């Protein structure tokens, strides 16, 4: 059975990610980000999903405890990774991108335009409706990442690393109102399966 823990950074929807993964036949549970790397590795996970949270990550110097720990996991864990909302921003900031206040914050339904499917958004072109809740946004993607999707208000709704299976999405695929969110998780599972085989 594929094993994918969800890193809990205090967002309301983190537990829903676990529910989504379980419904797709994955073994999953919430994990606190302070888990030491050795302990994480001893669990033999096949991938990591990181959830959203209420924090701001505009600067790496002022991270809350759990996000400082999450940033450590992002850098150290050599696993396929899907980062959602605040950890999407953390992923950007941790690799040298820029997160700032959103010109226009987004709450509730948002139309996402797919620029490039990049495997994680396979089948989601040209656009789909996703639900969001954010005051900050990724302003500049880090070096080595490219942008996969945008919305009217936000230029970087999804991004992926050029050569490794690491993805960030600003919207919430785990909430039931993002009808195609389950497709995104299925795409991620395919990527994880493939990674396992190589």
């Amino acid at each position, binding site marked *: 059975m594929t094993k994918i823990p969800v890193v809990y950074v*205090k967002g309301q929807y983190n537990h829903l990610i676990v529910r989504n993964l379980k419904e797709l036949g994955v073994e999953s549970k919430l994990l606190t980000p302070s888990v030491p790397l050795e302990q994480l590795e001893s669990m033999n996970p096949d991938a990591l999903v990181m959830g959203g949270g209420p924090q701001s990550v505009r600067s790496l110097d002022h991270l809350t405890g759990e996000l400082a720990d999450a940033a450590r996991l992002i850098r150290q864990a050599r696993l396929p990774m899907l980062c959602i909302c605040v950890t999407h921003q953390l992923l950007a900031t941790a690799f040298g991108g820029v997160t700032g206040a959103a010109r226009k914050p987004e709450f509730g*339904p948002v139309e996402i335009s797919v620029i490039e499917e990049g495997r994680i958004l396979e089948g989601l072109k040209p656009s789909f409706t996703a639900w969001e809740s954010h005051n900050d946004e990724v302003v500049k993607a880090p070096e080595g990442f490219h942008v996969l999707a945008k919305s009217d208000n936000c230029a970087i709704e999804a991004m992926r690393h050029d050569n490794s299976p690491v993805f960030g999405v600003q919207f919430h695929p785990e*909430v*039931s*109102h993002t009808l195609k969110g389950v497709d995104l998780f299925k795409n991620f599972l395919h990527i994880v399966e493939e990674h396992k085989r190589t």
Partner: protein
Amino acid sequence: MGKRLSVAFQGFHPSSFLSEETARLRELAQDKKVISAVSGGVDSTVATLVAREALGDRLFPVMLDTGFLRVGEPERVKERLGMSPTSLKVRLVHASGRFLASVRGKGTAEEKREKFRETFYQVLKEEAEREGCEYILQGTIAPDWIETQGGIKTQHNILEQVGIDPASTYGFKIIEPLSDLYKDQVRMLGRHLNLPSELSERQPFPGPGLLVRCIGNVTKEKIRVLKEATKMVETSLAPFNYEQYFAAVIENKFAKGHSLETVLETASEALGLPKSEVHADVFEDRVTGVKGDQRCYGLLAGVKLSEESRETYGWLQDRLRQLQAGIVEKFPDITRVAMLVKERRGGGPLSILVRAVSTRDFMTAAVSPVPWKILKDIGQQVLKEETVSRVYYDITPKPPGTIEFE
């Protein structure tokens, strides 16, 4: 085919959940007695039935009449749960006076919720002592602890998750068999337990009840009017099968402030209507919302269109969506927007808010497109109450709103 089916059902199996959970409860409670707080809602009913499978007659169901229940509800619930197949012998504890006294003079949502929680456990503790119970069983589900822990709102049934040790504070321990489940999974479990659909599919009702739909200060008149409006809204909207629908009451006191002067402009721009046809008020009492995963105890904007535009615009969903998003994105302090349905000039000091949403798990919610004519009929009925002068429909999804108002 077989494989695909099993994938579709993976994640939650009522029968294996039941056998694991009853084993855990037997182990946990040993031979001790357990008191169970029931409300008639699906969560506490299912939790109690799961516990009865495990504990048999060592389980004592009680229901607290907080005074914030709907007309006739305590008696109705006691009678219904007493019938087959639930056959629960529920003891009704009348405590409305104590609850009302504890929230008197408390104007903010969190103060009211915290006072309610305090009284709730105080009364339960007395009942537990009377029955010689060491454990309290309750129907907490996942959104309850997620929202409380995330600081979105204090759910009355959450203690341990926010650092209150029930054993040292109240002298009892808490059992929550459903704390990992969502509402739709609880209903699934209820159906598995052969609950009749009026119980397994029952419309959700918050623990603190009408208290959190009585925005701002609690007065007897506000609660009285709210009970009447609740009856009307529930009767009118029941046939539509929305997952949640209800009424709330707010006083017609309006916030003033320089920063709010441009709300009207934003509203008319979003609607594409001249300013002369639009009117906007911002209420003074605050309502709960959630923006960027953070609690936002913000203001409620009430938008009114001139009579003619109102008829035309009644339910142009896209336009209303733009109106709501335009205002909430631009004004950080405004968290919800409501549309005026009907008003009575020179009427009383209260407004009734109607809310209806579709939601699977209560974590996100979309505004339901209630037919404009139905809303107007509700408005007509509610305005017969002397003290009400306006009826609004809330057009805010969650996020940035929450499902309830406080």
